[in-house]
């Protein structure tokens, strides 16, 4: 399973396009927002937590179809399904690789982009913390959506339609944690809920995703 993780990481980093694109997309979303809503710094500060979370979520969504589609095309997904390791484990590793190549860089880049949106100083730590806790759930949920649509020729749009409603709770708790942190209110509840979603998704969704892949490979 570690070998699978290493292979996916190498593929993502070396086979151009996947690794940096999500980050670049995140940057562009954040740059575009002030053009849309105006450069008033008070307004930007107020909406910064939400914009950063929505941007991270969309950047994550962008690379989801890569999780299984390429392996499905060249047949290695069939090999994984018949390999001695459980498919559930393989799915979890692929989601982990997706998180390392998108969720983690987004988490690290988000405070820097917060600067562009005039995020109040007290929010940086909470932004990084909430993204660190929440983005693994985004990758897990996304891999479930990718598993559902892996057999489809043009699954990209359908994938976003399926996955985005599932992202709602994560987004709510994530943005709420940052907003509360800025106001100096208690952030315990949203952060705990984020952690709970991430842990539950990691524990349960690989089974659903593996079931979906088995159906699609049948």
């Amino acid at each position, binding site marked *: 399973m570690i070998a699978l993780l290493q292979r996916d990481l190498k593929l993502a980093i070396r086979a151009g396009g996947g690794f940096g694109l999500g980050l670049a997309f995140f940057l562009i979303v954040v740059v575009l927002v002030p053009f849309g809503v105006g450069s008033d710094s008070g307004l930007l500060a107020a909406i910064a937590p939400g914009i950063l979370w929505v941007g991270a979520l969309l950047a994550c969504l962008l690379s989801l179809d890569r999780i299984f589609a390429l392996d499905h095309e060249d047949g290695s997904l069939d090999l994984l399904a018949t390999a001695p390791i459980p498919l559930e484990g393989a799915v979890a590793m692929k989601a982990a690789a997706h998180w390392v190549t998108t969720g983690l860089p987004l988490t690290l880049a988000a405070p820097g982009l917060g600067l562009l949106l005039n995020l109040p100083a007290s929010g940086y730590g909470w932004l990084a913390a909430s993204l660190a806790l929440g983005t693994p759930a985004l990758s897990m949920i996304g891999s*479930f959506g990718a598993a*559902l*649509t892996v*057999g*489809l020729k043009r*699954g990209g749009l*359908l994938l976003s*339609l*399926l996955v*985005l*409603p*599932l992202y*709602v*709770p994560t987004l*709510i*708790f994530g943005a*709420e944690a940052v907003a509360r942190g800025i106001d100096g209110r208690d952030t315990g*509840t*949203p952060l705990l*809920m984020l952690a709970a*979603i991430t842990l539950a998704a990691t524990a349960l*969704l690989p089974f*659903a995703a593996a*079931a*979906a892949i088995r*159906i*699609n490979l*049948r």
Partner: protein
Amino acid sequence: MSSLWEYANPQKFMRTSSVLLPVFAVAAAISLGVGLVWGFFLTPEAENFGSTVKIIYIHVPSAMMAINAWVMMLVTSLIWLVRRHHVSALAARAAAPIGMTMTLIALVTGAIWGEPMWGTYWVWDPRLTSFLILFLFYLGYIALWEAIENPDAAADLTSVLCIVGSVFAVLSRYAVNFWSQGLHQGASLSLDKKENVADVFYIPLLLCIAGFVCLFVALVLLRTRTEIRARRIRAMIARERMA
């Protein structure tokens, strides 16, 4: 001893549903007709609400059915995954557009009511928001059914989506509660509370709810029968080609 599972046989289902369908259709027509006429013309206008209160006869039943339809889809999806009864999967597929329409009716009637009462068509209130999210879930579920060609794979995948979606729908409901304060009033009907709607509105409302339930059952039966017939036609065409 006959059991529920006998209806997993499409022929038996077709025979029984051909009897049940007109019964439920007529029951729906009568109870909706009586309930709506009674509610619209024969009840007084409520204090503070004026005549806008009458939208309750459509709003509340459709909102109830929007949720119940999803629950029904969850149950039939589980039956399909466990026992592989095709009628069950087809019933889930048949219920989805009806549930989505009910969600839409609840949202639209709520918006029409909200304009004179709250002064706005839409607020990001927990109940309104979770219904909008429910609408998105229906949309994704139906889109997945449409996208996959192999009918068995489509039934499997949508069933998995329905189960996972149910968990997330409940989670979203509570997340949304946490996120925003409500403007929507509390439950109009409940079994354990003393405070229900006033008695004059109560009986026509119950009639309308019964009517919506019958309407839902009739529509699901009708759509399931259509699906079964469509499958038969497809099988016949395939057999013809083979010959």
